[in-house]
């Protein structure tokens, strides 16, 4: 079932998209600021995102903000930052249950939008930048986030591998920066970065709710009309250059299972065929990697592939016994070679396409999925509905898949090697 999306430019470089769907029970507002990933500004933007999501000029602490949101039936307000290619996305989200579920006829959505508006256009600042108390809390959070990266071994391996895969490209810059850098930044620097973002970031706003709310768009139009806009359009796709020689890199971490990340790069412009290749290779439970590396060879619990269109790069991500690392990388190459040689059935191709379109068709069942769909579509430079995308995927031919597979060349093999060491200091258990 197709949804009606109305996208309108409401200020220079700012677009507002409204989607109305009467079946949904929650309303979601999402603001996406898109900016170039800069080594200096990325950590400042990350800090700014943390700060605007926790207080504003009227609600001056995270504690007070939490209490207000609890009273609005557990409405939520959160921010996050992410990397896509050589860009940084700063997202601000507010969501709440629909007003029809309010027990005392409160205007939940109206009150939440007031709070959200203040967070963006009237943040918690003084003459020295962001409020110093909130700033110090968030500085510590930033530092602890950097320190805690190693806690998630799979994520940590992916993070470290990018330093080698995208060496000297903005994409390799850490979003949160370093602990040393976080200790130096000031409330004024972060506020200046936030003002730069409001002034220069290309901004996409999405609002999904069960009924028409034209006042929401008008409110943002008015708010942005008071901002001096000078948008700088970032390049959403920068294909990562293939290295002249395959880069082999490794680190050692105390853990039980080694992690292997392999990067394959392509200069192909055929996005749909490259996506199908990555899914056939390692993106389903009947893919080459799942069937062979996991089910037949019992080497891994997980071994999957994903295509990063914005960088023209396919990543294979896996966890394996240390002594099986070479066996694994050899088999991954074997399986990709099979696709390159056209060694796959028409059935395999069709099944993969069916799997892909199945998830696309369900996009309209959740406000967040609707937003993610249209934002990803925006980032590829082509606003496609799920139905249009489905047609494109179904039209991908066997020859196109083989050509796309051939275009992927090995670029980097990164291994995070396991070194044993952990053990519990057991107490005297009476068992």
């Amino acid at each position: 079932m197709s949804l009606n999306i109305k996208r309108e430019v409401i200020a220079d470089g700012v677009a507002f998209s409204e989607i109305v769907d009467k079946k949904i029970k929650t309303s979601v507002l999402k603001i996406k600021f898109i900016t170039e990933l800069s080594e200096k500004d990325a950590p400042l933007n990350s800090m700014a995102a943390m700060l605007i999501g926790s207080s504003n000029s009227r609600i001056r602490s995270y504690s007070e903000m939490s209490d207000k949101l609890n009273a609005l039936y557990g409405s939520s307000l959160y921010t996050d930052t992410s990397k896509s290619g050589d860009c940084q996305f700063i997202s601000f989200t507010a969501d709440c249950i629909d007003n029809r579920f309010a027990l005392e006829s409160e205007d939940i959505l109206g009150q939440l939008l007031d709070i959200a508006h203040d967070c963006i256009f009237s943040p918690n600042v003084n003459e020295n930048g962001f409020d110093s108390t909130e700033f110090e809390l968030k500085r510590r959070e930033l530092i602890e986030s950097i320190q805690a990266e190693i806690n998630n071994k799979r994520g940590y391996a992916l993070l470290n591998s990018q330093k080698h895969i995208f060496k000297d490209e903005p994409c390799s810059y850490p979003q949160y920066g370093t602990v040393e850098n976080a200790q130096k930044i000031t409330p004024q620097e972060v506020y200046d970065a936030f003002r730069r973002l409001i002034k220069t970031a290309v901004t996409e706003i999405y609002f999904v709710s069960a009924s028409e709310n034209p006042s929401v768009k008008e409110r943002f139009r008015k708010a942005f009309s008071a901002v001096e806009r000078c948008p700088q359009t970032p390049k959403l796709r920068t294909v990562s250059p293939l290295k002249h020689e395959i880069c082999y890199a490794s680190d050692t971490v105390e853990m039980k299972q080694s992690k292997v990340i392999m990067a394959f790069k392509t200069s192909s412009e055929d996005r749909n065929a490259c996506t199908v290749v990555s899914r056939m290779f390692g993106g389903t439970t009947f893919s080459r990697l799942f069937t062979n590396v996991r089910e037949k060879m019992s080497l891994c619990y997980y071994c999957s592939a994903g295509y990063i269109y914005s960088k023209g790069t396919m990543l294979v991500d896996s966890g394996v016994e240390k002594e099986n690392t070479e066996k694994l990388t050899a088999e991954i190459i074997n399986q990709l070679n099979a696709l390159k040689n056209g060694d796959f059935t028409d059935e395999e191709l069709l099944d993969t396409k069916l799997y892909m379109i199945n998830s696309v068709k369900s996009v309209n069942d959740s406000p967040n999925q609707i937003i993610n769909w249209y934002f990803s579509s925006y980032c590829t430079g082509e606003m496609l509905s799920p139905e249009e995308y489905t047609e494109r995927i179904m039209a991908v031919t066997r020859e196109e898949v083989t050509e796309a597979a051939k275009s992927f060349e090995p670029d980097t093999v990164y291994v995070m090697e396991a070194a044993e060491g952990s053990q519990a200091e057991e107490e005297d258990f009476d068992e």
Partner: protein
Amino acid sequence: MNKQIIRNELTGDEYTYIRHDSGLDILVWEMEGYSTTEALFGTKYGSVNTRFKTAGDSDFTVVPEGIAHFLEHKLFENEDCDAFELYAKTGASANAYTSFDKTCYLFSCSDNYRESLEILLGFVQEPYFTQETVDKEQGIIAQEIKMGNDNPGNRVFYNMLKCLYHSHPVKTDIAGTVESIKKIDADLLYKCYDTFYNLNNMVLVVAGNVKTDEVLEIADRKLRKCEDKGLQTVFPDEPDSIVTDRITEKMSVGIPLFSIGFKSEPKTGYEALKTELEAFVALSVIADPASPLYSSMMDEGLINTSFATEVFSGEGYFTSVFGGESADPEAVFGRIKEEISRICREGMDRSLYENIKKYTYGSSVRELSNPESVASLMINSYFADVSPFDSLKVLSEMTYDDVMNFIRTRLDSEKAVLSVVEG
């Protein structure tokens, strides 16, 4: 066949409950306007069910830890192919999971749900295990266990359970250990399958883009009638006391993780749900970001935004959990116990309590908002022996005194433990 429509007046939602002639209970929630169909076929068989017998058995059977999870992996494979290959023809996204108290097989799709439902009901009723396929699976599961062991969040939680429970199997990892799964063979898998995968011990739930009559037509064709074999599961006696109040594990972590657990008496059915919701509200009043404890610990640098609470309960266990990251978990432990004592003396802030209740109500409404969460709510409620709408009822009847009573009686510092994972 017995068929009933269960309706909630507050939200306007309804589902159909069917007692099928095969012995299976079926719950179908038609959701107008949704594209997705979400189906779960589950058995009340989780990692804690390691000791059991049926009416025909003279003695209890005791099986190795991790066997329910192992069986879940193996059931995807039949004699000719695996279930994923069958689902590949329908485009459905399929998966399965094993928790402490249940095993569920599921699919999600936007087309061909009838064909996918036939596959689901088919492969779960057709076990095929050989020693060769069992041996092959041990390598995969060993990697899954090692991945879990590298996860400090898992380790800190399981270590907490080991400190809280003397003998209840909840203290053991759902997947078992690399050693315990080596004891699993094809015969043991068939024994567990025949015992727990009896339709009288199972449920099918379907939500979203679905028609009840179509589900029933498929069920009539695919389900094989089962005799109720009088399944009994037992747990070793579990004392009220804890085992020990501290455990620390060394791992490569950037900042220490902690899990603080308070053990209390488990309940069943509607009483369990009522206690769980009282616990949810109580823990939030104590440690939600809006609470004074959270603010002061945040200001002092003792916690960060990873700090959160959880109610962990099931057959034979009930634990109230506070967890997160901290450079000084011992201090956090002390502060939580002090705050509980203060609230016991002075009572809860009324406004904070009322707002937390609204938050909890909002969370219950959100659970009804898409096929995936609705299907999950239905199966969890079914196995907990309550209705999916009971949370809203419990919340509407909950009083300030109920929550105070929970804090006074169930957050006993003598039954509290601190588990830490540090570098």
